[in-house]
């Protein structure tokens, strides 16, 4: 794990309280996403998380679907590639088993806002373009190994460019339901005009992540969605 020092995360949408960003306390973050090999050790030790045994409420029918069997990741899920098709519940259970936790949305975004040379890529349109290019590229059936990409300023690999990642409070993005379903501040995101309230309207990757997270449910298992762990100091 790498130490991410205390800092400030600037959310795409600031709350009406007009705060100048979210204070993020220093924490540890996995250098690499959790791999199929890592996850195999977890399901061996915790049979209730094996594909044929998992309870439907904790993972939908796509859980570990690219694996060959309960204890065989198989050729489409190499040991050194990120594990995907895992639900939020499964990711959370893995993190707890390791004595860790999932990063919060603020922690993840803060760590991921670093490019290779700076903690804050806000002034780096080229970095954002690269991230956006990746978002536009469909995931391959067989994902690349972890750790091939360049490390960012904190020494972390693959926050962008390999898979999307679960965060602990993914369900804090309020973008669901009809007008009456949510009582919230973030309804500005619902339509294009609302984007005028965004802190940085050029930050398309942040819009994409917000939209993606708000489309998720905790039991969803998605082929390009994995996770990594975090830990308190």
């Amino acid at each position: 794990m790498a130490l991410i020092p205390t800092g400030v995360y600037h959310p795409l949408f600031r709350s009406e309280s007009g705060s100048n960003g979210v204070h993020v306390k220093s924490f540890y973050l996995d250098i690499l996403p959790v791999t199929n090999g890592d996850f195999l050790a977890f399901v061996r030790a915790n049979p209730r998380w094996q594909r044929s045994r998992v309870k439907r409420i904790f993972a939908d029918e796509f859980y570990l679907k690219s694996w060959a069997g309960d204890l065989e990741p198989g050729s489409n899920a190499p040991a050194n590639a990120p594990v995907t098709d895992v639900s939020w519940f499964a990711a959370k259970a893995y993190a707890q088993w390791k004595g860790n936790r999932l990063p919060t949305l603020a922690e993840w975004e803060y760590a991921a806002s670093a490019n290779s040379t700076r903690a804050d890529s806000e002034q780096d349109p080229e970095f954002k373009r690269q991230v956006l290019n990746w978002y536009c590229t469909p995931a391959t059936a067989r994902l690349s190994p972890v750790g091939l990409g360049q490390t960012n300023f904190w020494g972390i690999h693959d926050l962008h460019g390999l898979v999307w990642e679960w965060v602990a409070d993914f369900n804090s993005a309020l973008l669901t339901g009809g007008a009456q379903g949510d009582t919230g501040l973030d309804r500005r995101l619902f339509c294009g005009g609302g984007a005028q309230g965004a802190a940085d309207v050029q930050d398309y990757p942040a819009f994409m992540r917000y939209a993606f997270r708000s489309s998720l449910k905790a039991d969803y298992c998605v082929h390009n969605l994995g996770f990594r762990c975090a830990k308190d100091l």
Partner: protein
Amino acid sequence: MKPKPKTLFLSVAILTLGSCVTQSSPVAAQSSCCVKAETPAAFTDKSIYQTESIWTTDQEKHIKLSALAGRPQVVAMFFAHCQFACPIIVNDMKRIEAALPADVSDRIGFNLVSFDAKRDTPSALAEYREARDLPAKSWTLMCGHPDDVLELAALLGVRFKEDGNGQFAHSNVITILNAQGEIVHQQIGLNQDIHETVRLLQQLVKN
């Protein structure tokens, strides 16, 4: 019939008196009392009662959600300081209760689970119960560890977010669970027509 396996009752006093934020680690608290031992296998694949989280009621009881099994339950998430939506959610639940014949409503539980682990202590919830006139016989008010609040919200499909002012933005959802803890219906939004919810509850009690 086979006897149920006996379980040790762990009396680890992890819970700080009068508070719901009891520990910083996400490791689940052990039950200290009153929790009937149920193996996860006792519930169906889609039962939310498979979760191990422990909740504190406004009467300072520590319960697993599985303690609610055996009768249909009406569940909503809320916070006591909410000035707009939550009072309407609670009122909607009271409308549902009032619309049911007495012999049906007697067999249904009504539950409010707080988002606000900091302020909604058992005593704050007890005050809320008093102020809103929620009878102890049928209503349960609960608070829990923030991780468990997140998990329950995930299970119920409820989205929420704390803003800088101690308010929570949240989905307005009233969930109906059957006796096994499966979600059978969700009434979404405020001040909705309760007809369908009432009909379903009557049907669940009959079955």
